[in-house]
């Protein structure tokens, strides 16, 4: 964990444990993300990837009867410190979910503007500017520029997912969490979103769960392999995929289990 890049670490999880009732889904995971990189979380279904990523923006605790232990250091501050407002944390960490979830009552424009409005920005010209910019960033602007007033749910699945990315980006979060953002999408939409992520990492640090090995290999800088709630191996993507240090990782990557 200690390396020369240490000074650029923007997000660091330190011995995170997470429970659903008495079931411990994440068992002491520590890893960190350097500014401007993409970290991929891989591992078989049910190994705690989603649970872990949801502890990074304090979303896990919104489910009744859950508990988190450990620290998450965001820009030098522990977000689990007593007195830290989870709402403020979530404004700094965007999240994109597996299933696109635009607000059905809002237009395309309003969906992207939602985060800004929550932050108290209501000046029309500023909203319009940021909405356009975010839609462009999410590679969606050309497709929707003539129907910004249409409901967000009127778009295709892939477009909805890019809309959700634009919505998350609009508040300019330094970190973006993505939980299998392409698993519900067709190959073309998937390719678009992958391209987008590589483009985005100039401005945002991305932590992404994926079930797709090729995807992890293609777009991530670091890869973390989870198994039954534990972090088995974590390192540079090229190293993890070519010369894994742990046998379990190799077996998983080569498709021998999971």
């Amino acid at each position, binding site marked *: 964990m200690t390396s020369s890049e240490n000074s650029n670490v923007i997000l660091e999880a330190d011995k995170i444990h997470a429970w659903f009732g008495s079931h411990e889904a994440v068992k002491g995971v520590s890893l960190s993300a350097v500014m401007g990189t993409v970290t991929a979380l891989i591992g078989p279904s049910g190994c705690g990837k989603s649970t872990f990523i949801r502890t990074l*923006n304090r*979303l896990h605790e*919104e489910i*009744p009867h859950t508990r988190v232990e450990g620290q998450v250091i965001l820009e030098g501050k522990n977000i689990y410190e007593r007195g830290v407002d989870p*709402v*403020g944390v*979530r*404004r700094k960490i*965007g*999240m994109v*979910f597996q*299933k696109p*979830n*635009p*607000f*059905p*009552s*809002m*237009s395309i424009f309003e969906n992207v503007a*939602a*985060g800004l409005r*929550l*932050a108290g920005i209501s000046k029309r010209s500023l909203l319009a500017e940021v909405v356009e910019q975010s839609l462009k960033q999410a590679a969606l602007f050309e497709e929707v520029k003539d129907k910004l007033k*249409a*409901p967000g*749910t*009127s778009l295709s699945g892939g477009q909805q997912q890019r809309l*959700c990315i634009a*919505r*998350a980006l609009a*508040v300019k979060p330094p970190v973006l969490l993505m939980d299998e953002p392409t698993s519900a999408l067709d190959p073309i939409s998937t390719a678009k979103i992958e391209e987008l992520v590589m483009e985005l990492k100039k401005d945002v640090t991305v932590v992404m769960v994926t079930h797709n090995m090729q995807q992890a290999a293609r777009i991530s800088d670091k890869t973390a392999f989870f198994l039954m709630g534990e972090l088995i191996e974590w390192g540079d993507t090229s190293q993890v995929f070519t010369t894994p240090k742990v046998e379990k990782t190799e077996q998983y990557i080569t498709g021998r289990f999971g």
Partner: protein
Amino acid sequence: MSTLWQKDIHRGDRLFQFVLRACAIAAMVLLLFMVVNLGYRSWPAFKVFGLKFFVSSDWDPVNDQFGVVSFVYGTLVSSALALLIAVPVSVGSALCLTELAPRRISAVLGFLIEMLAAIPSVVYGLWGIFVLAPLMRETVQPFLGKYLGWIPLFSGPAYGVGMLTAGILLAIMIIPTILSISREVFFAIPRAQREAALALGATRFETLWIAVVKSSVSGLFGASVLGLARAFGETMAVTMVIGNRAEVAVSLFAPGQTMASVIANEYAEATTDIHLAALGAVGVTLFLVSWLINSTARAIVSRSERRGGAGGR
């Protein structure tokens, strides 16, 4: 063997379709029969009074003068009052039950509230006479009169019974309906939508607003329309507390009468043919007004759904 089996299914399907179709036709025939019959019964009144029946508020059985306006007014005002009170209360409680209360408590309370809808309306009426009306006469109306008496709506003597009391009682009666439907509407909103709002940095309250309430608008509207329909047709309890006087009074403290309550009140005692026919004509009017309001409401719901304000599904 497999073809035989398929054939059986096919025959079952046909039978099922036939039964369904018969039921649908029977329901329509019955409705048609009722309309025709009601129209026939009330025809003498329409023949004598013509359009005047719909624009006159003069209802005087002794002198054979009949006009429906004061009853339409009574129905509309008491129902509107009921909605005005019941919708915020029901939607607010439904929100508390689904979003804030622990699941166990929410389930128990939800069940109790649904039981409230099963209480016969005459029981509500009795409660209205024994509890609500005295409370209105001795406490609520004097209080309102003292502080808001300068508004014509709250002027005049406190009888206890009257339009306001009927509106409040109706509100209590339609709250279970609106509340339980609103609860269903909120339950149907996927977790993912709330999480979308939370992840954007919405507070709990903001999440309720943008992820839950805003996308439930058409569902809540539908719930209110059902409540309104119940308030419109409610007869017994209203008759017991509205005061039964055929007049259009500005003050909500004054007695009034609704279309349903005048029919229930006078039908048994109507002696002349024209009086009976006039009561039938009140029934026709009630039918028309409810039909008009219901179809308008439906049109509004379907328009807002087409525009994308989906009902939380």
